[in-house]
């Protein structure tokens, strides 16, 4: 047998289990030799004949896979959809939670913005990779060992309900938002003269830094008032649009960004108030309160903004 044929047979047998090897080897050799003989009889040279026969048989790995019946894929069509759904759900829920928790913990630990973001992203990435790897591995094993039927038979009751698919703005939503905004304005206004502690000398120590009233709190009240008007405009328009979603983004940013900035610079809260209460360092950047507040504001605002755009997309 020539070297070429030896190499080919060897390459094919390499991925075939011991038990089947001798039988397949004998049969394959005989078939190759027969084919080469036939070509030589038809006038080809030995070398061309061997080359042609082996080329015709093709990639030895594929031939071996055909012999052993191994699937040419990692996860087949039977299991693929369950796999995809599970992976998606896990990634969408676990990764953001991990990112936020790690970010918050890092901030509490005294990290600056850069390290908070890098740690959050770093760990989120690691977690995502781990989830992807293990879920894929489990399904690949299932593909090769067990039952191929999907875990849960699909029935009509598995259909998701008709979600708000039109991006419509309902009256209930608008009223609730308006009430909430009015409430916030009221609370802000009251906070100046009512929400606070009386100090020993009878003066009021408000929760919020009194200096805020020079500019920022009036600014916030204006923004909130504009948001009320915006809610009414949204309702009148009946549906979300891209421009409405953009305005929503701007208004959210106009409120959230300064608040976070002021919290970060320890200007929003009144240190005297907390000193009077006996809590030290509450208003400090890196403290638990501030970090959690910032995280919550960021999450709520992001969610609201994204939701606006999502609805705009649904409304076409």
């Amino acid at each position, binding site marked *: 047998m020539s070297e070429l044929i030896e190499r080919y047979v060897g390459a094919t047998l390499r991925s075939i289990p011991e038990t089947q090897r001798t039988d397949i080897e004998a*049969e394959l050799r*005989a078939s190759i030799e*027969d*084919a080469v003989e*036939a070509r030589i009889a038809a006038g080809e040279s030995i070398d061309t004949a061997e080359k042609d026969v082996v080329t*015709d*048989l093709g990639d030895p790995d*594929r031939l071996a896979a055909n*012999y052993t019946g191994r699937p040419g894929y990692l996860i087949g069509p039977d299991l693929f959809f369950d796999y995809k759904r599970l992976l998606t759900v896990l990634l969408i829920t676990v990764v953001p939670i991990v990112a936020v928790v790690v970010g918050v913990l890092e901030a509490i630990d005294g990290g600056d913005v850069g390290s908070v973001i890098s740690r959050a992203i770093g760990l989120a990435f690691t977690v995502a990779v781990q989830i992807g790897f293990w879920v894929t591995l489990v399904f690949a094993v299932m593909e090769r060992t067990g039952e191929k039927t999907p875990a849960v038979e699909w029935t009509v009751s598995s259909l998701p309900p008709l979600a708000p698919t039109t991006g419509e703005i309902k009256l209930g939503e608008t009223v609730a938002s308006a009430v909430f905004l009015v409430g916030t304005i009221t609370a802000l206004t009251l906070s100046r003269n009512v929400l606070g502690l009386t100090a020993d000398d009878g003066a009021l120590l408000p929760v919020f830094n009194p200096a805020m009233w020079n500019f920022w709190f009036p600014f916030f009240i204006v923004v909130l008032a504009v948001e009320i008007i915006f809610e009414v405009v949204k309702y009148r328009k009946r549906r979300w649009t891209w421009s409405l979603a953009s305005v929503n983004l701007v208004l959210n940013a106009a409120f959230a960004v300064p608040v976070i900035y002021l919290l970060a610079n320890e200007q929003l809260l009144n240190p005297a108030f907390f000193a009077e209460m006996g809590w030290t360092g509450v208003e400090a950047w890196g403290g638990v309160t501030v970090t959690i507040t910032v995280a919550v504001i960021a999450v709520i605002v992001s969610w609201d903004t994204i939701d606006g755009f999502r609805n705009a997309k649904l409304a076409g």
Partner: protein
Amino acid sequence: MFIVTYDDAQVEAHLKELRRGSVLLAVLLVLRKPGYGYGLLQRLEETGVEVDANTLYPMLRRLEKQGLLTSEWDTDGARPRKYYTTSDDGVQLAGKLMSSWLEMTRALEDLNRGESG
């Protein structure tokens, strides 16, 4: 005006798909008389059944595993050869597949002529 061109690869793919199911039936029928690897390939080609060597050889082993073929090594000749024969189960299956095939042929011919079946 639309000019639709099917490239050769697409046509080949469709033809391959069309032939795929028939190879099994052809093998079961032709092996009612014992045959071996390369010789079988030749016999099938002569009668017009196109099949690749790298599909046929593994298929023979698979069918034997499923009990549709039986095999025997013939060590007499110059070269030891594994001869396959269609088993009783294989013959039975071939019968069922054949009737189904003829029905389909009839149906397709009717459709081709433009009549309802």
